[in-house]
């Protein structure tokens, strides 16, 4: 779209374009300030293959996150062909070494990112760990929230989960459909505490 732009934007047309894009299509993924475990900036949305992207937010010191490891692995295996999974560690005190050890301990074979500036957190609108965000093939946020309802309260896990929110959301995303509930908050440990 060609417009005559008022000062000061004549000189900063790209910024204007970015802002315009953000305004017009909220939720399009961005991801410039997350890092892989070698410390390189990595954007989980840079993949061109138009796959569904699933971000799983975890904290190492969160027992609920840890207990979900088997479930997360099962889900990621189930949708390995049609979705890309990323484990995201938003806690600022995490280092690549601590994350690597955690991945080894919990036998994760998924790629991991650190998100100390909470860029992915904000994009995904997640509040606690473990929560997940599902982006459809156009990298639009389709679902954010809990993996399932195994935990009804911070101490209270049910004998077994009754819902499978994340699984349902991924399936919908892969099929190009919408989800019933686009956000269902999870129970767990705060992502955004102080520092």
């Amino acid at each position, binding site marked *: 779209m060609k*417009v*005559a*732009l*008022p000062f000061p*934007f004549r000189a900063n047309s790209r910024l*204007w374009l970015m*802002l*315009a894009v*953000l*305004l017009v299509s909220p939720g399009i993924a961005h991801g410039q300030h997350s890092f892989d475990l070698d410390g390189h900036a990595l954007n989980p949305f840079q993949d061109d293959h138009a796959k569904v992207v699933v971000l799983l937010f975890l904290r190492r*010191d*969160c*027992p609920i*996150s*840890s*207990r*979900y*490891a*088997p*479930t997360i692995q099962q889900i990621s295996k189930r949708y390995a062909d049609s979705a890309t999974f990323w484990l995201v560690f938003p806690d600022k*005190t995490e280092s690549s070494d601590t994350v690597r050890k955690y991945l080894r*301990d*919990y*036998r994760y074979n998924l790629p991991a990112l650190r998100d100390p500036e*909470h860029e992915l*957190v*904000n994009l995904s*609108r997640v*509040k606690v760990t473990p929560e997940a965000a599902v982006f459809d093939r156009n990298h639009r946020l389709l679902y954010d929230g809990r993996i399932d309802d*195994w935990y*009804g*309260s*911070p*101490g*209270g*896990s*049910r*004998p*077994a*989960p*009754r819902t499978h929110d994340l699984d349902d959301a991924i399936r919908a995303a892969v099929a190009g459909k919408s989800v019933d509930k686009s956000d269902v908050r999870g129970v767990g*440990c*705060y*992502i*955004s*505490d*102080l*520092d």
Partner: protein
Amino acid sequence: MNIGFRSKVFLACLGLIPLGVRTSLAGSGRSVAEEQKPKSQAARTFNRDVAPVVFNHCAACHRPGGSGPFSLLTYQDVRSHARQIAAVTANRFMPPWLPEPGYGKFVGERRLTDEQIQTIQQWISGGTPEGAAADLPPLPTFSDGWELGKPDLVVKLPPYVLLAGANTDSWPRFVLPIPVSGTRYVRGVEIHPGNPKLVHHCYIAVDRTQTLHIANGEVYEVGSTGMDGQFASGNAELDSRFLTWRPGSPPYMEPEGMTWRLDKDTDLILIMHLLSPGKSEPIQPSVGFYFSDQPPTKTPMIVRLEQDGNIDIPAGARDFEISDDLELPADVKVLSILPHAHYLCKEMRVFATLPDGTRQWLIWVKRWDFDWQGVFRYAEPVSLPKGTILSMRYTYDNSSDNARNPNSPPRRVVGGQKSTEEMADAWIEVLPERREDLFALEIAMMRHKLAKYPQEPSGYADLGAALRAMGKNQEALDPLRQAAQLNPNNVQVQNNLGAVLGSLGNFDEAIPHFREALNLRPDYFMACFNLANALRLHGDLPQATRYLQQAVELKPDSVEAHNQLGLVQARQGKLKEAIAQFQEALRIKPNDPLAQQSLERAQAADSEPETRNKTSKPDIEIRP
């Protein structure tokens, strides 16, 4: 100036920019501006106001090696979890403490006062200042070693690997091997769960007869969802107290005179509640025992209020009430309480109504949480006189509003040990003022249980066994007969019934029951020995001999069996064999008076040549 369309769009876009800043506070829903409001109260600092609360109420679990998932020992620790702490203390999820204050005063109360909760809130809204270094109290010291001191005996289990993937809690049970060579008296037990982050709580059940171990083999199956085995009593030594562990609960030595007996053929079963792990984890508990030379002069017992068998909660019921009441037949002091239910229970009330009508609260749990169950010990024992009625009133919510309802949609729920079933128990440790009242209490409990479950064979079996243990053989007859009728394959019942009949002189009837017991369990020494004695008293010496020989094979170190065999053999003139038996008895227990006396007589009789062929009693007159 006229603001054109593009300018409006530009200004609108500017509104988007603060988003990035605001969402970092999304957890609290407050804006940046609010955070900087000046406070009217005196500023709370970590060092002066928050640290004492955290050190005294949180650090016991929230420290390296503790049950908590992260430590809360420093300013940085606490600040980095500040909002989480504020939220979980405000809704009293943490520290975990079920009893309502004012309805029972307990040791180790972990509750925060309203003021302490406010302090934390104010500290955060004041910007979490650290405060003056001089204000910081010293860190409490924690010992990961044995808190009660060096144990006399440590039993460490081989590592049990808890596998990830089941996503459900598990309840494995382990038989603790107790390498004591004889009877010991225990003053204290300290349980180290081995992996406090995954062990939710554990307790030790005392199984005094190995018959039950063998009969209830499935009780020891690892990984089943049942929560406790049924250990029917029926022994002279009643099971007396709680041996438990949960996070933050301090171990303790029994008060003077309150040791408990540990025999070498007693099984101790460690029952653990394990959380499901995210990865395979080894669990390796160890248990320290502290012994004393002093046999107990005071023995508590666990009185149980319950209605498990009569639970039937319809789907959707929100306020389903379960109750049980028991009258105390003697004066007691209440020492501790363990209320228990599963996921549907929401409120628990246990109280005592004294004969004069006054109510003494034992515990009120307003918001039951299955995960934080445990034993609560009274700071001061609660005295209750004879005639007091103990009552429990539990309320259950089997609707879909109950976030922890294991069934979705809700289903009818009955009593049982599985987590999808429900329970209603209040285990109350009482110390009778007079030791002889232990039996009266036991009988009262059993009669009460029979009244609730008249079809339950074990009720009759237990009552009969207890009466027999008290020497009330005539009273024991009826319940034991009932038990044998309802459950003829219970070896204990058959043996007990035989023993009671035998004690009453009714050998005709006793003998078939002993035969049946031995039939059911051919290696059961007691049944074999009892049978032999009954046959002997009934006059059938050859059969008595046969079973005594069997008894001696089953338990070669039984002085009694050797003696009895010797006597029976002597009576049949088999003096050489008799002598051998008495000598064996003396070898096992030198100076045994019966063995000594019998040996002398038998040797004397044997040295008389004319008496070698006689088949009369050992009192042989000497022929000139």
